[in-house]
């Protein structure tokens, strides 16, 4: 700051801009890792800053930084709050391409750290007003997060989608259920009037039994895959979508140690071959988003 002849301090324009800039900036959180990642990790993570990620400002992104506290380090980037007003965000998120760029930008930083050491990925799209808030939150959860990080070391997440052909499952139900098979025979031989009621009864029983068979298949698949993993988590599918006679019956995430990848692959094969009409898709490896959380107890 400059000083006038009378001894009064004057804030320079540059100092003023920096102070105002700090007041209107925030911190975008990518994830939490253990303290002391090599500088190369961060350098790789920001190799392509202008990737359209949500924390990438139009005028160029700030560097990635580490906010350290205890044995933990939060991977963050300083951002301008003006870039995060609801109006600006809605505009950026409105298009499919915009949303994809933003989400990939977040994941790219998480993956860059994940390639070197365990990271608890942060939820997408959260900006903190003050660095001290992140640091004090880290301080309070350090004891529980460090073991969680240790658990995730050397592990990846894999996403699984299991699909069943409804008609195939239905026929297996008929073949394996004498009562339903008899009902079907009775229906085929019945007079038109009786056939109407038998048809309704058959449809209801068959639909119920088919649904149950799909639940059993999904449960069996989940149990088989969890046995080959460190942990498994079922994710909601939402309303079942029947696409070309195929319906998704299981959506799940698994935490796999990298050295156990082959064993998990073998389990995937056995799931896909477990029954006629099943098809399995997988994606990964992902950073362990689904296994990042430690404590879900409600506060007292």
């Amino acid at each position: 700051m400059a000083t006038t002849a009378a001894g009064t301090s004057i804030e320079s324009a540059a100092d003023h801009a920096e102070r105002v800039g700090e007041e209107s900036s925030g911190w975008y959180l990518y994830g939490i890792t253990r303290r002391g990642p090599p500088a190369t990790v961060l350098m790789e993570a920001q190799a392509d800053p202008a990737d359209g990620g949500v924390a990438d400002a139009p005028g160029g992104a700030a560097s990635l930084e580490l906010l350290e506290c205890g044995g933990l380090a939060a991977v963050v980037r300083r951002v301008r709050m003006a870039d995060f007003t609801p109006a600006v965000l809605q505009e950026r998120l409105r298009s499919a391409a915009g949303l994809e760029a933003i989400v990939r930008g977040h994941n790219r930083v998480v993956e860059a750290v994940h390639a070197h050491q365990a990271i608890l990925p942060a939820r997408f799209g959260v900006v903190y007003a003050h660095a001290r808030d992140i640091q004090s939150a880290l301080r309070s959860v350090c004891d529980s997060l460090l073991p969680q990080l240790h658990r995730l070391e050397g592990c990846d997440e894999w996403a699984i989608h299991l699909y069943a052909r409804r008609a195939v499952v239905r026929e297996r139900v008929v073949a394996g259920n004498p009562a339903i098979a008899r009902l079907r025979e009775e229906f085929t031989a019945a007079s038109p009037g009786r056939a109407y009621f038998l048809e309704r009864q058959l449809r209801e029983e068959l639909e119920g039994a088919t649904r149950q068979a799909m639940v059993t298949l999904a449960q069996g698949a989940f149990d088989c895959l969890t046995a080959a993993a460190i942990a498994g988590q079922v994710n909601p599918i939402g309303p079942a979508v029947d696409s070309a006679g195929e319906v998704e019956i299981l959506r799940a995430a698994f935490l796999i140690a990298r050295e156990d990848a082959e064993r998990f692959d073998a389990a995937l094969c056995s799931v896909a071959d477990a029954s006629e009409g099943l098809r399995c898709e997988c994606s990964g490896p992902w950073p362990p988003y689904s296994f990042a959380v430690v404590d879900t107890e409600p506060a007292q």
Partner: protein
Amino acid sequence: MLDLLDRVIDHGVVLAGDVTLSVAGVDLVYLGLRVMLAPVERLPELMSHSASEERREVVCA
């Protein structure tokens, strides 16, 4: 992209603190100074056409 979206939107750590904002459409619940998972509404599945890019079908020899 669907699988990526599922991951970053619905999962991941949230540190309680003075959070300035959240992305439009995301509901966050804070429980004091504790790390937690807050279930959020899923964003519309805009990327279904590119789901095949990131997934592979399990085919056994």
